[in-house]
């Protein structure tokens, strides 16, 4: 583990009482490797370690800790600060419905997450509607419809119009049926696909959403920065959802996405089941990333 490696590093140095710059530089080389192996973006690692160094050099080593532990404590805290708050709540609009727009790369888990959110909010006494606005992927509408049946949530569909018009129709239907949450599933897309990003912006305009959630696969690599930035440019994100955290990916993409968007991670996906949606815990995530 990183703490053992750092203990070795520090054992070879002569630090006593305070962390010297040489000690810190040597140790940060190890930390850098750990964070990169965890898929934190290389530029993000640079700026994060610069911050850590500033706090660490000259820092007093607490009596109960080894120098290695003291440094890891600083890194851990820095990760937690970057990962942001837990319990970031969903928006509460002045008038119903709460409109949630779901977006992200292909295969990230949007459709499954949309259904999980609907299930979660229904269990809290809300009356959700799912909107099948992915008109592109084969059987995407069927997928959302089947999930809707499973959880007893209506799914708005319209195979005859484009996504922005469909969303307008969905909002109208939600209001007339007194449904107070509208969750819009969209087609996966590349952040560099201008046509599809413009379409997403049009869907965003039609929906006028209270929440715009980027669904990001926890195993995403270095491109998490570009992906998060790309989506942020076209639609003003309000939050992130990290999926497939039930796997063994370290999840450094969370750090990257948080660093560049500043938006809170509102939920995490922890399985394929309809109940597999959890709250986000920054301390747990920080430990996971550090390894």
């Amino acid at each position, binding site marked *: 583990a990183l703490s053992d490696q750092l203990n070795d590093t520090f054992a070879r140095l002569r630090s006593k009482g305070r962390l010297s710059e040489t000690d810190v530089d040597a140790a940060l080389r190890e930390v*850098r*490797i750990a964070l990169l192996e*965890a898929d934190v973006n290389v530029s993000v690692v640079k700026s994060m370690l610069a911050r850590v160094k500033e706090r660490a050099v000259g820092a007093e080593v607490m009596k109960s800790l080894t120098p290695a532990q003291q440094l890891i404590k600083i890194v851990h805290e820095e990760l937690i600060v970057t990962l942001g708050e837990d319990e970031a709540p969903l928006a509460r609009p002045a008038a119903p419905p709460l409109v949630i727009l779901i977006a992200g790369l292909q*295969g990230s888990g949007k459709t499954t997450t949309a259904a999980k959110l609907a299930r979660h909010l229904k269990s809290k006494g809300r009356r959700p509607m799912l909107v099948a606005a992915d008109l592109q992927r084969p059987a995407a509408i069927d997928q959302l419809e*089947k999930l809707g049946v499973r959880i007893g949530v209506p799914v708005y569909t319209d195979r005859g119009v484009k996504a922005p018009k469909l969303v307008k129709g969905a909002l109208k239907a939600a209001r007339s049926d007194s449904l107070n949450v509208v969750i819009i599933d969209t087609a996966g897309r590349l952040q560099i696909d201008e046509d599809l990003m413009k379409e997403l912006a049009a869907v965003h305009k039609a929906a006028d959403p209270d929440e715009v959630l980027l669904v990001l*696969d926890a195993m995403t690599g270095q*491109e998490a920065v570009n992906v998060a930035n790309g989506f942020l440019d076209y639609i003003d994100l309000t939050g992130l959802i990290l999926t497939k955290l039930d796997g*063994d990916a370290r999840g450094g993409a969370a750090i990257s996405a948080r660093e560049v968007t500043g938006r809170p991670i509102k939920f995490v996906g922890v399985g394929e089941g309809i109940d597999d949606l959890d709250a986000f815990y920054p301390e747990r995530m920080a430990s996971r990333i550090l390894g």
Partner: protein
Amino acid sequence: SLMGSGRLDDSFWDDLEETLIAADVGVTTAAAVTEETRSRRPQDGAAARAALEVALVGAMSDEDRSLRLIGNPAVVLVVGVNGTGKTTSIAKLAARMRADQRRVILAAADTFRAAADDQLRVWADRVGVEVVTGESGSDPAAVAYETYQRAAAEGYDTVIVDTAGRLQSKSNLMDELGKVARVLRREAGEIGEVLLVLDGTTGQNSIGQARSFAEAVGVTGIVMTKLDGTARGGIAVAVEHDLGIPVKFIGVGEGVDDLIPFDPTEFVEALLE
């Protein structure tokens, strides 16, 4: 930039290593390849880049990159974690094979995920191939078996088996996959090609995925998808180098023609752009 004609000092090599890391090559592989290139003492930036390309291509697999279609019917088993592009890649492969005059039948052995069979059926109709589906929640090995039997009986020469996405850390799901493979091997004698589909945007976890799937069912080839995005798929270098499994195709879009044979030289050039 890698072509800069400045002197090849530490910062040049650090930048080079950082370019590789940013392409998901991985910090260990990036360091090793950079070190090897540096040790050849290239004269300038251009020579360094050329040497780096040689080092990267040299690190990759020597295995045959063509599709291994063995037996009649030949069996291709497609596996991988959730959402990587297995079902879509199968549609693309089926289209290629059909253009090659092969008689293809698909097994919709993802009996778990909502509308997985619907999705494969839409693709099968578009491509003009047959598909065998099973009851939702039924045994995927049974669908694979049924499809193989039908292929043998009705003169299909190729069976492509779609399976449910599964995270490699889930041992019960990996066991389930093992059973699908066992049944196919029992019927066919061998599975000519087991394709692991890796998402090109995934980072270091792809190595663990490749190891686990190789262990569970044996992997003969990789399809790396979504390289039409900004991800450069550098992890392919480590997967090929550490495990010896060749990338056979890359996915470059959501359309049926968006699958191209993998070329290590082109791939490495794109990596360094």
